[in-house]
């Protein structure tokens, strides 16, 4: 057992480090920039990566990728994270949308048109899946696409679309046949977010930020050449995308404070019975946070080890997001509890308090995004433990009838 790179991995890491060191001066601090500046910074960094061959590391060479290994991608991500490179703008597009485009696009022309431009960072993508009536029950979407000659006409509404306000294109799941059961009547398309009839309205989140949006489609026309996969195969196609999403959403956000911050905060607080860090109940909570926080990092290392040695990783990584989000929430609540009433005050001068307050608010969203706690427990129970699936009364009847069940 060891935590060292293999010789090959070490060589790749050295190469990556050298490149990042040579180019990191061009990374602008995101904290102080406006949204427009943040987008400019992200685009500049992406262009540099593209030039150097660090985009699509695991993608096939035929689509412009590097044909590399999952380990190389992991190593690049680790090194990139150390310099706080601005990568968020492309997480969805390159993490989920473009792999769907090159896996399910109908012609080489489509891949040639969209993939390289997206890799360079010149076009930004979003995924349009969730709807007001289809969140956890994603296959219950109602946005319609109806054929009209060699085009489709899309009408409906999407919601929780991250980055739609910054995007040039999106992949959209639509219902093309309501007369068949819900998973069977879906079809996916590439949609131009600047096309007539697409309206993006930002949603203000309870955290105060606006990362996602409502997107309305009114008679939006899409060419049949921009379909992804066969008509009626949209659910299968979307599983490709979602598989990538769960990997992307799994880790702990860089902004979230950890166990060491909790210790520093506790040390700074004197309770009636003495210093907070000396109290048994405080120490129990810190240890519990450590078990979860460090436990997820170690679990990730088991997965990486499997990849590194050419084995198929076990299902252990399925626990990641649920533990990360709940630990963030528990730690945020406990950290502010320690501060008594001062825990309420924004900007109060206690170590890391502001970050705990922020991560307490943000964690409520993380427990929902990319699969709720409940959906993830279902996945663990059904796919890992092999338990029977939930009762789904709408599963085998035409969607048009299923919508009347409620």
């Amino acid at each position: 057992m060891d935590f060292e790179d293999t010789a090959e991995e070490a060589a790749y890491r050295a190469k990556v480090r050298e490149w990042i060191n040579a180019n990191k001066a061009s990374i602008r601090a995101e904290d102080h920039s406006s949204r427009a500046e943040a987008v400019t910074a992200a685009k500049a960094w992406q262009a540099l990566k593209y030039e150097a061959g660090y985009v699509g590391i695991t993608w096939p060479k035929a689509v412009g990728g590097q044909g590399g290994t999952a380990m190389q991608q992991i190593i690049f991500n680790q090194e990139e994270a150390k310099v706080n490179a601005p990568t968020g703008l492309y997480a969805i597009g390159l993490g989920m949308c473009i792999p769907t485009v090159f896996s399910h696009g109908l012609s080489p022309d489509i891949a040639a048109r969209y993939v390289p431009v997206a890799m360079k960072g010149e076009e930004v993508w979003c995924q349009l899946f969730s709807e007001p009536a289809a969140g956890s029950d994603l296959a219950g979407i109602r946005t319609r696409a109806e054929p009209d000659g060699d085009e489709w006409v899309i009408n409906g509404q999407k919601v929780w679309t991250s980055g739609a306000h910054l995007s040039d294109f999106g992949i959209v799941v639509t219902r093309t046949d309501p007369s068949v059961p819900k998973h069977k009547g879906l079809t996916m398309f590439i949609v131009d977010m600047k096309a007539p009839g697409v309206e993006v309205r930002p949603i203000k989140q309870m955290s105060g930020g606006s990362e996602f949006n409502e997107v309305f489609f009114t008679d939006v026309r899409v060419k049949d050449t921009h379909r992804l996969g066969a008509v009626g195969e949209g659910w299968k196609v979307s599983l490709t995308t979602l598989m990538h999403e769960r990997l992307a959403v799994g880790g702990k956000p860089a902004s979230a404070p950890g166990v060491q911050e909790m210790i520093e905060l506790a040390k700074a607080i004197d309770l009636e019975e003495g210093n907070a860090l000396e109290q048994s109940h405080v120490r129990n909570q810190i240890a519990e946070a450590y078990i979860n926080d460090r436990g997820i990092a170690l679990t990730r290392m088991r997965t990486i080890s499997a990849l590194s040695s050419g084995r198929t990783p076990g299902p252990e990584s399925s626990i990641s997001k649920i533990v990360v989000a709940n630990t963030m929430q528990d730690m945020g609540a406990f950290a502010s509890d320690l501060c008594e009433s001062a825990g309420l005050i924004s900007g109060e001068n206690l170590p890391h308090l502001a970050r705990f307050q922020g991560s307490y608010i943000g964690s409520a969203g993380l427990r929902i995004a990319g699969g709720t706690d409940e959906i993830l427990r279902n996945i663990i129970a059904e796919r890992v433990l092999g338990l029977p699936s939930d009762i789904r009364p709408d599963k085998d009847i035409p969607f048009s009838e299923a919508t009347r069940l409620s």
Partner: protein
Amino acid sequence: MNFQFSDEAEALRDQARRFLEDKSDRTKARAVMNSGSSHDAALWAEIVALGWTALRVPEELGGLGLSVLELCVLAEEVGRALSPVPFTSSVLLATEALLIAGTDAQKAKWLPKLADGSAIGAVALAEGTAVPGGKSKLSIAGGQASGQKAPVADAHSADFFIISANDGLYLLEKSAAGLTIGDVETIDLVRRSSRLTLSNAPVEAMAGGREALERFLQSAAILLAFEGLGGADAAMEMSVTYAKDRVAFGRKIGGYQAVKHRLADMYIKNQLARSHAYYGAWALLTNAPELPLAAAGARVAAIDAYQFAAEENVQLHGGIGFTWESDCQFFYRRARTLALSLGSKTHWSDRVVRNLEQRNMPFAA
């Protein structure tokens, strides 16, 4: 990165699991509980024949000289099977204590016997409400010890004891004058315990003093974490099997979210415990500076996982799970034994934080 067990260790796991499934199903634990015997001697003889007791003993002393990783694998498998043998006491604890703190003479005397099964060892750490490694009331002077140790698991089977005192570990032979062994009943009806009363009993100091005692506690924490992890997984699997079979309200209960989500939570806790146990195994193997933290983390995570799995296993079985005939009680009781026999979760949580406070370096991994 190689944060997994080697192919050889995994092959040993497969072999051990097949053997224990064949020879040590839970009827063996029940038979020992019902008969009141100290352990299943026939099963123990087969385990000795497989070389499990010789695993870590150096080759020059008649052992196999394998690494602690192989021992972790066996700890997990024996914990899984709830095998009624003194494996924990003799192999995971006494043998490791000798390897860590034995003098050359003590090693030469006892390790060959432990390896070939002609002797069984046990450890006597506990003194009522005191924390192991904490303040001991044992008085030791002139090579003689007086005081009490309780509960001491497998004392009836043991030929010698390794006892903890304020200044380190001592070796006490079963035949020593002034040693009385009396039964105590504990919550665990399979792994039996006793009270040792020492009255000027001759003891031999082991090497390394408090530092060796501390190192032994860390090793024990990690090995017992693997044992607990095995039990936690087995309890979870017992629940999953039942949930796939039991019908209520017209369908298998495993299809209801109240049930399946609890089982998913068991899986989550067991995976976290597994990752921490592996971290402990790595730290033990490499003698990493992280060892004290990794040991404490492994122990806390394993206690937590086993307790949850054992409690919810009874709950998910409903009334049948609370009967004497159900195997649920074995996990429920064993989880407590492991939680309390080396210092409680609160004590080891405190150790986690103490080690985190002292950290001024990033994690190696």
